[in-house]
């Protein structure tokens, strides 16, 4: 019973926070300076790690795929299939998981620490809404920067895949890219970007909410960080399924 109550509280809390943030965004209540800071902090600084992770994923995927396809005389489909799967699934999901671990944990610990050290009360005492100052710029930065992180990490996975295919079955770049036109459409790119934007917003909202509800000192903040990251990873897979079913 207690688990259900806590789950409902969390869902309710995140929903209310989302609506408040949406209302503030629609009213144009975003400070450009804060937004720029968060775009650098959440987005630009996440590009290297996301690119490294997706590059390894691209290399592994092609390692498994290229040998099997070459045996069946379909080596020219390696690049196209790789791009299709990565655009629809692996780029948004892997980028989402990397961001949930990196920026999600960082946001929750920062806001959680601010809460237990009365900094959130100090913001309110200074006539400043903590959601406006902390959540709105982070959510917008998450929405804007996750697709950009995806572009860089997508390139990483594409070229890492090519390097692996070239090394394993001697595929040239024109052969590697030859299947893209027949297998990949603009719809796949759209789906990738839609997923990235929704994952970006979700990761930040869940992370901020986890920080706002932190209590009980350093141990409490640590617990909130863990809860936030776990919830984010579960939500990424759940939303991935829903978006794929809707946009499929």
């Amino acid at each position: 019973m207690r688990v259900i109550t806590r789950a409902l509280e969390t869902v309710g809390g995140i929903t209310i926070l989302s609506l408040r943030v949406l209302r503030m965004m629609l009213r144009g209540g975003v400070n450009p300076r804060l937004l720029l800071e968060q775009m650098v902090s959440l987005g630009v600084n996440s590009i290297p790690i996301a690119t490294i992770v997706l590059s390894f994923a691209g290399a592994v995927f092609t390692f498994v795929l290229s040998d099997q396809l070459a045996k069946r005389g379909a080596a020219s489909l390696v690049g196209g299939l790789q791009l299709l799967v990565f655009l629809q699934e692996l780029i948004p999901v892997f980028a989402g998981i990397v961001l949930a671990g990196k920026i999600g944990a960082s946001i929750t610990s920062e806001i959680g620490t601010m809460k237990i050290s009365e900094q959130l009360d100090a913001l309110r005492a200074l006539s400043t809404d903590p959601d406006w100052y902390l959540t709105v710029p982070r959510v917008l930065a998450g929405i804007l920067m996750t697709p950009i992180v995806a572009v860089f990490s997508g390139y990483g996975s594409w070229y890492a895949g090519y390097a692996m295919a070239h090394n394993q079955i001697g595929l040239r770049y024109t052969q590697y890219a030859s299947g893209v036109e027949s297998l990949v459409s603009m719809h796949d790119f759209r789906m990738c970007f839609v997923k990235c934007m929704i994952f970006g917003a979700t990761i930040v909202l869940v992370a901020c909410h986890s920080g706002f509800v932190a209590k009980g000192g350093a141990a409490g903040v640590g617990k909130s960080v863990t809860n936030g990251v776990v919830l984010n990873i579960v939500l990424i897979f759940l939303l991935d399924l829903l978006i794929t079913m809707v946009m499929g």
Partner: protein
Amino acid sequence: MINFENINLSFDGVQVLRNVSFNVPPQQMTAVLGPSGSGKSTILRLIMGLIKPDSGRVIVDGEDVTQMSERRLQRARRKMGMVFQHNALFDGLSVAENVGFYPTYVEKKPWKQVLAEVMELLADLGLADSADKLPSELSGGMRRRVALARSLIYHPTILLYDEPTTGLDPYMTEVVVELIAEMNEKYSVTGIMVSHDLPTVYDIADHVVLIADGSATVVGHPSELLRSQSSEVIGFASSWRRHIIEYSAEIERKDEGPEAR
């Protein structure tokens, strides 16, 4: 200017404040005394609207802050400043950015203008060389002064101090007390100070409100702590008797002038 009317407040089923009523006179310093955990800091949070009571009203400048929406509270808080017990400085921002927070984000002034105001105030408080430092690089006394500067920069008419001298050494306590007295006089603010520190209360308070067992008793001037007939005051004063006698005598000597010594 600030009136507490029959405030009742409980946390997790424990009643912290019981029918608390008192008035805070304008442009004077009121000290809220009481044992640890008696709900002294809660009084400040109620004035700021950071928490809401179970029942009763807190009237600030004719408006009941307990009934205000967060949006209206944001406007009401523009005339109030608060120095938190542990300063609550934004640890990711420099001293100048902390002090300039309100003019930058609430008044939306250009940073160049904000910085000029910040530097003038920091110079007044002896912190001009620390403008670019982070709060973690400062001593306890310096952090307290930064917290004070952050509240003073927008010239509030009401200033709330939560244990302003806690954790400071005797020298720094004296510096901060003098600073508070000076700033209160300079800006003619209504001050409310929560404190355990009797010397501080004697130095800068004009009135004392004692919170004990969830109830408030208005004492008047600190020197009247020993003369009060209230059982709560007698109970509190007995544990502080030696200090109160010492400071009452000191105050009397000061009042009588140099020839009395």
